[in-house]
């Protein structure tokens, strides 16, 4: 059962809410755990065995690190060293499952991966590392740890949460509240709108163009790339709305994964707004540990004496940044296109890091402000182009195909070809998509101005409030891509 299916939001979730309400507060986490196991069994069947392995490994690793810390066997640096060895073994054991399922296809051995393995593996690593860093204490109840790792709204495609942020609400068994249920369902509706009205309508056109780009000229390919970026954003952020909204109905807060990414000022800022929980995970568990590794510190010191502080302070972060983007690329899959995608952003952000301070100084000197319409428009356009090129390579069949598409956009661009292009979707669907995307832009713009739209709507009088939500419900029913003539489009990020 996937989140965007109506059976999830309007059958499965209400049943859970009723059972949750009927269960005494202190047993509610047990109910959630049973639901998680049932949900996981439904979608992954026998592969749940590997999830159980991950839970046991993580639990034992956490417990061993914790006990080592409280015993007097080792102290100081020896204690740290032994803790790190246990942590290393725990990480390797968890990562090995991910590597076998996800990357063995590179050597011709393919398996069906357990659902959500890429997401819960990252959560196991953060949990074990945080115990080793003493920022959290070890969970003594294996059931509670299993609940944190398998929490049903987030197990398929994140957000990648942290144990420290989740444990209180997840285990407290807080009472359901009318406000949270209505607010959660409002968010689910908006998520369904993005997924069913925008993303699923664009999917056939994107599929067609990226399957045989050689049949199209540069104009159609450029629009196809924009369509894919829009599809991906509407789909992934829409699913996040459904996920975070369904958790909100249970009064459990999940971390946000998107914050109006297309209003970012540069590529680096874009990644602070797009798939936020992956970015912060990479920062805390890849960027900082590599940056603070002793060999790199030595290198930095040596460089300081040779090239001076300004250049030497760039060396270590740049190496760490390389590994961040390498991991980001590889995490998405075994294909070379993903690796290219990671390296693409590494190069861009590296260039930005070098150039931005000089550009800022230049702007200050010549009294050019960020609020200047020309400057902000240029920045938005630059980011739009950067993101769309990146997503085009990300979605392309191969790197060669990506470059051929790019070449066509540059050298074979004829607006006249739009008239005869076969998009794979009819005009009616295109018009619906167009207006839905405009609505998405307006909502994002309002959110960017720090206005909480759901709060604003909830302050309106009842008839207006209901008119807005009914309009959204009927727009999904009447214009959503479902039923006869449409195939159910799987969630893109569930495959990563």
């Amino acid at each position, binding site marked *: 059962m996937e989140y965007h299916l109506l059976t999830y939001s309007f059958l499965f979730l209400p049943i859970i809410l009723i059972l949750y309400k009927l269960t005494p507060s202190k047993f509610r986490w047990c109910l959630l755990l049973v639901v998680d196991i049932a949900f996981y069994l439904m979608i992954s069947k026998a592969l749940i065995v590997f999830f159980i392995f991950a839970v046991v490994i993580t639990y034992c690793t956490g417990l061993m690190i914790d006990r080592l810390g409280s015993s007097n066997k080792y102290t100081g640096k020896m204690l740290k060293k032994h803790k790190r060895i246990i942590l290393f073994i725990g990480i390797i054991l968890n990562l090995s499952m991910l590597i076998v399922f996800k990357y063995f296809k590179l050597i011709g051995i393919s398996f069906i991966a357990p659902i959500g393995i890429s997401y819960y593996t990252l959560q196991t690593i953060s949990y074990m590392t945080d115990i080793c860093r*003493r920022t959290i204490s070890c969970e003594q109840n294996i059931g509670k740890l299993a609940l944190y790792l398998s929490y049903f709204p987030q197990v398929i495609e994140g957000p990648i949460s942290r144990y420290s942020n989740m444990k209180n609400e997840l285990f407290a068994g807080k009472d359901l509240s009318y406000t949270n249920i209505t607010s959660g369902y409002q968010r689910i509706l908006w998520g369904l709108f993005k997924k069913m009205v925008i993303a699923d309508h664009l999917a056939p056109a994107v599929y067609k163009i990226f399957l045989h780009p050689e049949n199209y000229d540069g104009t159609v390919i450029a629009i196809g790339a924009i369509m894919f970026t829009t599809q991906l954003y509407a789909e992934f952020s829409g699913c996040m709305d459904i996920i975070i909204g369904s958790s909100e109905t249970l009064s459990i807060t999940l971390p946000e994964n998107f914050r109006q990414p297309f209003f970012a000022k540069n590529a680096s800022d874009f990644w602070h707004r797009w798939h936020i929980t992956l970015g912060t995970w990479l920062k805390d568990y890849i960027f900082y540990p590599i940056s*603070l590794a002793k060999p790199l510190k030595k290198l930095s010191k040596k460089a300081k004496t040779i090239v001076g502080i300004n250049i030497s302070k*760039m060396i270590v972060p740049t190496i760490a940044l390389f590994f961040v983007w390498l991991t980001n690329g590889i995490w998405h899959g075994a294909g070379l296109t993903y690796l290219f995608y990671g390296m693409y952003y590494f190069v861009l952000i590296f260039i930005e890091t070098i150039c931005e301070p000089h550009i800022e100084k230049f702007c200050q000197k010549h009294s050019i402000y960020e609020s200047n319409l020309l400057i902000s428009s240029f920045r938005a356009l630059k980011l739009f182009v950067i993101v769309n090129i990146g997503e085009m390579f990300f979605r392309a069949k191969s790197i060669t195909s990506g470059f051929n598409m790019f070449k066509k956009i540059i050298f074979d661009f004829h607006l006249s070809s739009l008239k005869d292009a076969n998009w794979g979707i009819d005009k009616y669907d295109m018009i619906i998509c167009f207006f839905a995307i405009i609505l998405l832009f307006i909502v994002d713009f309002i959110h960017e101005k720090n206005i909480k739209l759901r709060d604003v709507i909830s302050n309106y009088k009842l008839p207006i409030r209901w008119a807005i939500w009914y309009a959204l419900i009927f727009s999904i029913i009447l214009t959503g891509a479902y039923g006869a003539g449409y195939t159910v489009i799987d969630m893109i990020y569930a495959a990563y």
Partner: protein
Amino acid sequence: MDELIEILEEILPCEDVVNCTTLIDDHILSSFDILSLVSDIEDSFDVDISPAELIPENFNSANALWNMICRLREEC
């Protein structure tokens, strides 16, 4: 403390590092500066700064940094 101020002044030559309490909040210290600062503090004060310490509360001012150094020294 004087040694810490010297380190900060070397990294941020144009800032009032003694009185500033928003080094992170106002983006005065970049992530690159933070890493450089960590390296210098570790050398000068013989402490080990783990990634868990890299939070704004520890880096917003010279005082916050000094408190972190003192705490890490006690833990050693």
